């Protein structure tokens, strides 16, 4: 892929990300309308590990950290790292060099994978304390 095309793609990705964030800030995904319901939740009634992420990011954009945490604590915890990584990826394509990175030993990445899968399982358990991990649960107690 040539450099110019790469930059166009990068600019397109950046702009769509920005548009997505603006939409998320303006419209609450918890209300029906602009954001479609999740197919997995619609058909199975299950929460996936990412369930509540969009609603959580919406609350974060409004400055409501507690509400965001209640919707998806994993998203709130990992968002700074994921954002840093995305900025770094963008910089790699722009100037050939990303931001300083910490090398994660393989065992950490496997642990992270296990945390994501386990979180997806236990937040579906319908009893205390695991029901606190379901999206928005503590707000309704």
């Amino acid at each position, binding site marked *: 892929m040539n450099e110019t095309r790469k930059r166009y793609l990068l600019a397109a990705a950046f702009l769509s990300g920005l548009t997505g964030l603006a939409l998320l800030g303006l419209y609450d*995904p*918890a*209300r*029906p*309308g602009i*954001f*479609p*319901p*999740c*197919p997995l*939740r*619609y058909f199975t009634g299950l929460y*996936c*590990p*990412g*369930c*509540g*992420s*969009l*609603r959580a990011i919406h609350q974060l954009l409004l400055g409501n950290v507690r509400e965001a945490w209640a919707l998806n604590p994993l*998203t709130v915890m*990992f968002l700074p790292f*994921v954002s840093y*990584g*995305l900025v770094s*990826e963008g910089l790699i394509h722009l100037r050939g*060099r990303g931001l300083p*990175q*910490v*090398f*994660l*030993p*393989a*065992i950490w*990445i*496997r642990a*992270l*994978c296990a945390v*994501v*899968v386990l979180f*997806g399982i236990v937040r579906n358990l319908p009893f205390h304390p695991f029901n606190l991990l379901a*999206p928005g649960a503590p707000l309704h107690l």
Partner: protein
Amino acid sequence: MFCPQCGASNPDGSAICIQCGRNLLPAAVPMPVQGVVLPLGQTVPNYLIFAILSTVFCCLPAGIPAIIFAAQVNGKLQAGDLAGALAASRNARTWCWVSFGIGLGSILIWLLLMALGIVNNLAHHY
């Protein structure tokens, strides 16, 4: 000598950093390790960020192998197996795209079903 990327202490004259796999040789010397050449100052990408994003937002069953291969990239780098790390890196990238593709495909089908009125937009959990 210390690795300019991760700061790990390496024996003098090392070809790659024992911790992060960065090429430590000067620019004039390309690094042939098992027939693989890594450009100076580059490490093997593990695509972890995209693996996590595609797991959470696109397709969990295809995202998990992407994260496992991301772990394998770093594991092989730690073991000094550059060729293995590059192979795992390609696998990680493939699984990220598979997950992204399935996710995008299902969202498009989903939007189509909603546009046709086959499913309604009253449920609002995302």
